[in-house]
């Protein structure tokens, strides 16, 4: 053992003792008793660590407090590049994604961060259902124009909005070519409980009067190891959510390689020619699971009215 190594070990041991003593003293301060039972955990950088069970709870609590802080929502989850794939051959406008999203973000019925369009590219081609959310572009026209850094691009690929920063100039809405963003034209109708929720750009809750909001890819769910609600709510497994770096996406039922899926099914990005570089890929509506008419089945009259201009023949 050379000197420096010995030094290092010694220092490490001292530091470890200090930390251990510190943690238990701190736990005592907080009025938490060590459970004595240790749990093995995998840390973020891939190391196996042992933690007291009592500390686990505390950490969960601390985590939500950190989440509530704005700064963390701006940085992104390290080592991830989120991506979504939408399989157009499976969509029958069941609208479960829309309602799940609204429920999760406490949105009123007429506010859709995610909606389903009925597309018909030209006279000859067949109409198809087209779920449209925020594309979280890698070259986002909305972020470019924001004068106060209220909407930003994170390292993990997400484009989020900080509604505590937004001045409501709506320039981002004019700049977004996909009409993704919505505005709170009046005071949102929220219960006191929702209003009191700690705000984070990751949860986008609660909505705020006079600010812009949109689909956020639910990074708060991802942090909990869950899929965004639109993905799990879809009865047909239309949405695949995942990580470009891992090269894997899942719709909850099956997990597939992103590169293979895009290659085999000829995945494309919507309006690629605009140069916005979306993070959402579409799989063309070939070999459809449903006739397009199925999408009208459970719609209200108002919802049917939306699609009246599309020629179904």
């Amino acid at each position, binding site marked *: 053992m050379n000197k420096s190594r010995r030094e290092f070990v010694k220092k490490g041991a001292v530091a470890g003792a200090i930390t251990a003593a510190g943690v238990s003293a701190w736990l005592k301060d907080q009025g938490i008793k060590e459970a004595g039972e240790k749990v093995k955990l995998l840390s973020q950088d891939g190391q196996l660590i042992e933690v007291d069970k009592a500390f686990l709870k505390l950490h969960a609590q601390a985590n939500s407090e950190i989440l509530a802080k704005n700064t963390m929502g701006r940085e992104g989850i390290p080592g991830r590049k989120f991506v979504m794939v939408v399989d157009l051959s499976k969509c029958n406008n069941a609208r479960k994604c829309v309602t799940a999203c609204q429920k999760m973000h406490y949105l009123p019925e007429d506010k859709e961060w995610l909606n389903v369009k009925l597309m018909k590219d030209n006279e000859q081609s067949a109409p198809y259902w087209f779920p*449209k959310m925020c594309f979280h572009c890698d070259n986002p026209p909305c972020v470019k*124009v924001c004068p106060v850094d*209220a909407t930003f691009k994170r390292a993990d690929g997400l484009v989020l909005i900080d509604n505590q920063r937004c*001045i409501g100039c709506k320039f981002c809405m004019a700049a977004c070519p996909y009409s993704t963003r919505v505005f709170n034209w009046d005071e949102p109708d929220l219960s006191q409980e929702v209003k009191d929720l700690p705000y984070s750009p990751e949860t986008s809750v609660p909505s705020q009067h*006079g600010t812009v909001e949109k689909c956020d890819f639910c990074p708060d769910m991802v942090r909990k190891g869950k899929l965004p609600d639109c993905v799990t709510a879809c009865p047909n497994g239309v949405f695949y959510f995942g990580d470009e770096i891992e090269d894997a996406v899942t719709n909850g039922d099956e997990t597939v390689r992103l590169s293979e899926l895009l290659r085999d099914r000829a995945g494309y990005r919507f309006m690629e020619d605009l140069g916005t570089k979306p993070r959402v890929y579409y799989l063309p509506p070939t070999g459809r699971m449903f006739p397009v008419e199925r999408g009208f089945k459970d719609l209200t009259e108002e919802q049917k009215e939306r699609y009246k201009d599309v020629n179904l023949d």
Partner: protein
Amino acid sequence: MNFKETTQNLLKELAPTIEKFTWKDWLWTISLSLVILWGMYALYLQIARGHEVTGMRDNVVWGLYVANFIFFIGISYAGAIISGILHLMNLEWRKPIIRIAELITVIATIIGPLYILLCMGRLDRLHYLFIYPRLQSPITWDVIAILTYLVGSVIFLYLTLIRDFSILSTQQLNIGLKRKRIYRFLSLGFKNTSEQKVLLKVSTNIMAIIIIPIAIVVHSVLSWIFGMTLRPGWHSTIFGPYFVLAAVYSGTGVMILAMYFFRRLYGLQRYITKKHFVYLGYIMIMLGAGYGYFTFSEYLTDWYSSEKWNTELIDKLFNWQEYGGLFFFANVAGILLPFIVIGIPKLRTIESITLVSALMVLAMWVKRYLIVVPTLETTLIPMQETRPEYIHYTATWLEWALTFAGIAAFILMFKLASKFIPIIPIWETSESIKKKTSAIDTNVDLKSVTHA
């Protein structure tokens, strides 16, 4: 007639407007204030209830307010370019009208940006523009450019006022000691020494030069708020120069209108003459030709290349059920009419030039509306929307109230300014008449020259 005499004459004529606040002035002030109050009530409602009370919704996120913003910044060009360029070209005939031009600039630059504030969902966070600025955003460019422009215009106006302040503080005027003291303070101790004259001349020239590029930057940056987006009708490389030209053009129109009103109101027929209307008319149709050329080029290329969304937009502009009427008016009254009326000598009178200017200014306002609204109604992804207010923008009475309040505030500020400072620059006009009489040895009687 010598310099002193002209100064005395001019003072005599302008004195009543500066000395007394007549019942007519009160009538103007009160009625304009009522319009402004009506706007304030609308503003109160908008703040209390939110932007829900406006016609703006998720697709058409901007409306009348942004059109007004472009319009007011546009007419502010009257002073910057007209008096700036005319000053540098050293044209004598400009002198009686420069004050009007510079006042238009300053007042319009104060009112224009207020409309952007009306568009903001969170007025309480206005200071974020300064504490969290992002240089990438065209809005930040705008904030910097417009503030610089405002400061520059105020300095330019002030520099041309110093001599008049010194005249006002020393001459026999029935205005009370307090106001005289204010004038003396504002004249910065100007006593017409040769050193002071040189200093003032040099600084005015420098400001006249500086204000021109600043003005061009202001409207270019403003156009880029639209030009930098990926929207049909906005995403155009000529938008910078197109906006600049449209701005000077509309500025000239407002200039003629202001000249007409002050001429009538204060009986300035001897100083503001037909020549001024005709010359400005010439400048106007020259600018109109350029503006018309840009307009034609813009729509021709969009129509000919027939890209999907551009075609959709142009179909709306040429459709009588949609924007056809407004588009027709914007181009006929905004381009063609001034040409016919000012171009044909027989039709060229003070009244006809003023009338076409009024129509042109209105047409230019409509043009701004047509830039903002139809594009926002043309989304790249089909709207598939059933709420009519989300599909089609219709301004509510509140937005109109605030629009008229802005116009009223413009006129009121103009009116009040004319009660405090001479609307015709006394010193410069006197000097130009002195020059004329000494240079050309004819009996240039003011009356005979000016009564056209």
